[in-house]
């Protein structure tokens, strides 16, 4: 067996593979370990060079700026600066942070999001839980309870508590596990996809109940046109993708309080749905 002396590893997220090339040995092993569930032998769709720089910077603000110059996505903060060329599908990030793994996750999450949207997928600010091999997607603004739902759903598998990737595969809408998390610190995540059973718009309330949303209302709640190049043509394409999703997957407003009883509500709703169809 030949020794692999290069510091590069390929990961695959939502069916999209990225070759990560690193300049620093210790961080290379850290990245390999952190993304081990997502390692892939497939030829890469994109290449990302990662340069680790020495840092003594103490974080004051973890906000970062995203901008576009022609087909180049540029992302920068006090702890990193990087770009991704959407035409050449190559990118580079220089990280000068005490938390390089977290920073790399932020960078990859953004370039993956743009790539997925550009290639026909949907990216939602949402959490996802797998129950009986089907995915339940919970969406809403920050603070609406996306991470809480994941915590309350243990020991069910979680896809993410922050970002959900949806793609149409053979006419069915599937959600993919990703290695990018929000409030909940998961080391890896699950590298698998699951057909979506339902979409749930979270609303905090003093009791738990579901309210089926008409497609118009569901579209208005779920739609998020990201600020990426594409303008109106992209907005039209995204509207069609969301409508396609809502044609196949029911959407509910989920009134809930911090209790796992919402699963009983969901189970009853789908049991009723099945009996009505029968």
């Amino acid at each position, binding site marked *: 067996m030949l020794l692999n002396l290069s510091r590069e590893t390929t990961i695959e997220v939502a069916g999209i593979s990225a070759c990560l090339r690193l300049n620093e040995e210790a961080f290379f092993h850290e990245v390999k370990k952190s993304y081990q569930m997502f390692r892939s032998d497939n030829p890469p769709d994109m290449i990302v060079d990662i340069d680790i720089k020495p840092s003594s910077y103490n974080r004051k603000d973890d906000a970062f700026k995203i901008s576009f110059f022609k087909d180049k996505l540029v992302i920068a903060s006090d702890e990193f600066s990087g770009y991704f060329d959407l035409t050449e599908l190559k990118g580079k990030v220089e990280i000068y942070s005490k938390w390089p793994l977290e920073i790399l996750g932020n960078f990859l999450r953004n370039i993956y999001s743009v790539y997925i949207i550009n290639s026909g997928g949907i990216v939602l600010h949402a959490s996802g839980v797998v129950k009986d091999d089907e995915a339940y997607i919970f969406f809403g603004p920050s603070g609406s309870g996306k991470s809480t739902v994941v915590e309350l759903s243990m020991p069910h598998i979680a896809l993410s508590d922050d970002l959900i990737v949806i793609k149409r595969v053979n006419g069915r809408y599937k959600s993919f596990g990703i290695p990018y998390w929000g409030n909940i610190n998961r080391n890896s995540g699950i590298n698998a996809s699951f057909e979506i059973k339902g979409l749930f718009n979270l609303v905090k309330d003093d009791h738990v109940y579901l309210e089926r949303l*008409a*497609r*118009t*209302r569901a*579209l*208005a709640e779920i*739609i998020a*046109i990201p*600020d990426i190049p594409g*303008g*109106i043509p*992209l*907005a*039209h394409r995204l*509207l*069609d993708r969301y*409508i396609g999703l809502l044609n196949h997957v029911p959407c509910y407003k989920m009134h809930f309080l911090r209790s796992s009883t919402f699963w009983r509500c969901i189970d009853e709703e789908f049991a009723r749905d099945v009996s009505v169809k029968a």
Partner: protein
Amino acid sequence: MKSLLEMCPSRHSRLASRIIDGEAVIVSPTEGVITILNRVGSRIWGLSDGKKSLKDIADIISGEFEVTRETARCDAQEFIKDLSGKGMIKLAGTCHCEA
């Protein structure tokens, strides 16, 4: 000067919209604003193609919904004025008819 009824409203090109189950969902990507119209408003929105005058649109509404022609014309003018004020509709004096 033409009256509002003689003008031809058209949906602004900086907006993306779809009509689902008779209701229009309108998105302004630059402002991040989403608007949902009721069924009558959605029908007027759908008919606002820059080719039909508001008078023609109001007459179609009168034929499709239970409303007199006069009421339809009055309500359509108010509605289009409102959308025009929000920059969602453009008003042209000359209707652009297909050749």
